[in-house]
């Protein structure tokens, strides 16, 4: 049995001798992994709320055929309520919705938020390897978000406001031909800053995890969330520079007469698609792999069993990450590839279903025969396994080049990636949030409210996205503001679902307010004997400094299983 020493309360008191910064200085100049993690989480919640409002406005517009909502929004935001301005503003909204949710909600919540908060705690490190760079990472992201918001009000297409070319930023629409105004430049520079922020952050995670683990915490004894963050950090480090490079080419094409993507000078817009998706496909794994880690730990905790197939889980994540770099052109089946190229990309894409299947199997096998308690984090984790599997199956459907001819750019694709992202990634974020909330804040939340939040969201979000599969089969194209009567019924259902999940978000906000108001103090470990990882050995809320003397970890280093904190049998 492996175990670690108890957190010494003597250490905690010693820190009070130091002057801890307070107020705005504490956060603006913070070098503390927990404070920066908190900043990231608050940022992610705020950005997520803006992104959610955008999505609900989009669904409100699509509830019925015809234009209803966006003429008003466009009139308010740009002073132009004409039909063309309304259509443009719709495009701006769905583009911004995507960028906000990817770069300013999911990534900051998972890597910046939970990664910063929990990785040092989980591996027994006193802080991140480069605390000041960590601060830089966060504030670069805040600046990046400000630039994206600026783009909404800058001129894009002639006479229009904002950039409406989707998160993919394909030229020629994003070049001077489609968007001569500075809105596209704002978006490009925003992505540059977000990329720099994530690259710095991922170097920090890699150094921390490879170099600052407590003695005895070998690589194959790390909890799966630490593994998932390490793998994601490598994905970020390899993928984001490609986006940065491609966007720099686009920026110089727009402003300095280079012709990387301009046919006039021998360039090719398809090259941008290749570069973008070489980044873009790993990016979707960047969004989901930390979720794998969170769900693995939550499922193990609330099944009161060690995770089934720990080593297999690690290799499955590595395999998914590795394969993620070799399948990008499955987003481009309709750009005219030879049959052999399509065969390769179909096959390589389908192979990813194998390690993904290993993960789903291992989560189910962990629950199998376990003593399951359906507390809120576990509900979200089980919900994750369900929606992620649905999204994964539709992904295998879309991987077929022949079927993709029919479904490409239809609502089927929208349903697919929302099932893995909007439901999968977000459910894992909520699983992590409800799992670690007592550790981060020191307060217990109202579990009844958390369960309401889960069920309302689960029903609402499935009602939103499941009918979109039908719309896709009917042939409804994505990124359209209006549609024929034939699609009216399922669009109405989908919009009602969006309102219900919006109500779920309100429950979530009230739950946070209630938890801070009621101040029910959380014990060190609120989850019982299943919670064996190191973060449950420090007090709740986790003090400013933890693991300054590294925890001593007992047990056989050759046993490949997560190091556990023991059941009160500390040395």
């Amino acid at each position, binding site marked *: 049995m492996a175990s670690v020493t108890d957190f010494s309360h003597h250490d905690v008191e010693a820190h009070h001798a*130091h*002057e*801890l910064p307070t107020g705005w200085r504490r956060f603006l100049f913070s*070098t*503390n992994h927990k404070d920066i993690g908190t900043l990231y989480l608050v940022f992610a919640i705020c950005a997520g709320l803006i992104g959610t409002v955008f999505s609900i406005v989009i669904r409100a517009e699509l509830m019925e055929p015809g234009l209803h909502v966006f003429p008003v929004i466009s009139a308010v935001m740009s002073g132009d309520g004409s039909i063309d301005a309304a259509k443009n503003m719709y495009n701006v909204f769905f583009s911004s919705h995507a960028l906000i949710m990817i770069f300013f909600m999911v990534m900051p919540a998972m890597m910046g938020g939970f990664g910063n908060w929990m990785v040092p705690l989980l591996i027994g*490190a*006193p*802080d991140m*390897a*480069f*605390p*000041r760079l960590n601060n830089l990472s966060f504030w670069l992201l805040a600046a990046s978000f400000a630039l994206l918001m600026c783009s909404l009000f800058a001129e894009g297409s*002639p006479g229009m406001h904002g950039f409406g070319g989707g998160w993919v930023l394909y030229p020629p629409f994003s070049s*001077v*031909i489609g968007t*001569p*105004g500075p809105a596209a430049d704002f978006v490009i520079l925003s992505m540059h800053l977000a990329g720099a922020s994530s*690259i710095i952050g*991922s*170097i920090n995670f*890699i*150094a921390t995890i*490879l*170099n*600052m*683990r407590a003695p005895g915490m070998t690589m194959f004894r790390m909890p799966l969330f630490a593994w998932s963050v390490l793998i994601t950090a490598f994905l970020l*480090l*390899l*993928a*984001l*520079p*490609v986006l*940065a*490079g*491609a966007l720099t*080419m686009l920026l110089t094409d*727009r402003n300095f*007469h280079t*012709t*990387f993507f301009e*046919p*006039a*000078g*021998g*360039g*090719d817009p*398809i*090259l941008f698609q*290749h*570069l973008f998706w070489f980044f873009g496909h790993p990016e979707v794994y960047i969004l989901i792999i930390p979720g794998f880690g969170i769900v693995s730990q939550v499922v193990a905790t609330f099944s009161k069993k060690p995770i089934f197939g720990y080593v297999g889980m690690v290799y499955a994540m590595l395999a998914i990450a590795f394969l993620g770099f070799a399948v990008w052109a499955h987003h481009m089946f309709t*750009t*005219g*590839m*030879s*049959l*052999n190229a399509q065969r390769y990309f179909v096959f390589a894409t389908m192979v990813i279903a194998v390690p993904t299947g290993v993960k789903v199997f291992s989560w189910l096998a962990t629950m199998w025969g376990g003593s399951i308690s359906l507390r809120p984090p576990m509900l979200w984790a089980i919900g994750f396994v369900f929606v992620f599997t649905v999204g994964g199956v539709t992904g295998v459907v879309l991987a077929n080049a022949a079927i993709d001819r029919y479904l490409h750019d239809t609502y089927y694709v929208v349903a697919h990636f929302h099932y893995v992202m909007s439901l999968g990634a977000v459910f894992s974020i909520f699983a992590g949030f409800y799992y670690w909330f007592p550790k981060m804040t020191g307060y217990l939340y109202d579990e009844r409210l958390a369960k309401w939040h889960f069920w309302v969201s689960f029903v609402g979000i499935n009602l939103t996205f499941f009918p979109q599969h039908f719309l896709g089969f009917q042939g409804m194209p994505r990124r359209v503001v209006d549609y024929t009567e034939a699609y009216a019924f399922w669009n109405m259902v989908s919009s009602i679902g969006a309102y219900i999940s919006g109500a779920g978000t309100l429950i979530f906000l009230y739950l946070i307010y209630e938890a801070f108001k009621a101040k029910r103090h959380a014990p060190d470990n609120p989850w019982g004997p299943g919670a064996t990882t190191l973060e449950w050995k420090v007090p709740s809320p986790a003090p400013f*400094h933890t693991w*300054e*003397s*590294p925890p001593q970890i007992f047990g056989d280093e050759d046993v490949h299983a997560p190091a556990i904190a023991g059941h009160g049998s500390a040395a």
Partner: protein
Amino acid sequence: MTASGDHDGTTVSVGGRARRNNCLIGVGGITLALTMIGLTYGAAPFYSAFCRATGYEGTPQRVTANTDAEGHRILRVGFDANVAPGLDWSFEPESESVRLRTGKTVTVFFRARNLTDRPTEARATFNVTPEVSGEYFDKIACFCFTTQHLGPHESAEWPVVFFLDPALENDISMARVDSITLSYTLFAPPSEKPAPGRSADRAGPAG
């Protein structure tokens, strides 16, 4: 890492070997990121060379002579000529299409005319659709290989000499392709383009 981290009040910093290792990983990470940016830029010439070598994206092949091996399939080759906004030229194929046997060399002509009062130059971009046929579309001579100059109101007839590689008969991607379109778009050199942002013109078929 060292047995205990020390901190200057708020920032925890590690000392000795751990610090050195962190810095090594930091430098390695930055190097890796910069390498990826470099590779991204390297992708542009690589992609161009890849397309020329494999015919990817409908890039016709450039050859010096026909191999004289005649095949037996007969395909239609259609011609399409465009002028990009910013270049005041007319540009059209002499015949709309030709039917030819694989392996047989043909010469077709395109007519171009400078509609302005000053000498200008232009360069044509080219591709064939369906894209998979690029690999088998072999050009021996083409006006698109070089920049073309036309004086004020001067007109010219430009030849294109090409053949279809009989090897296409063995490619199942080409089995159901009966018709190939060779398309050109004439562009003013990028340096002569007016400042961006002035017009919403789109490229379209020329006169």
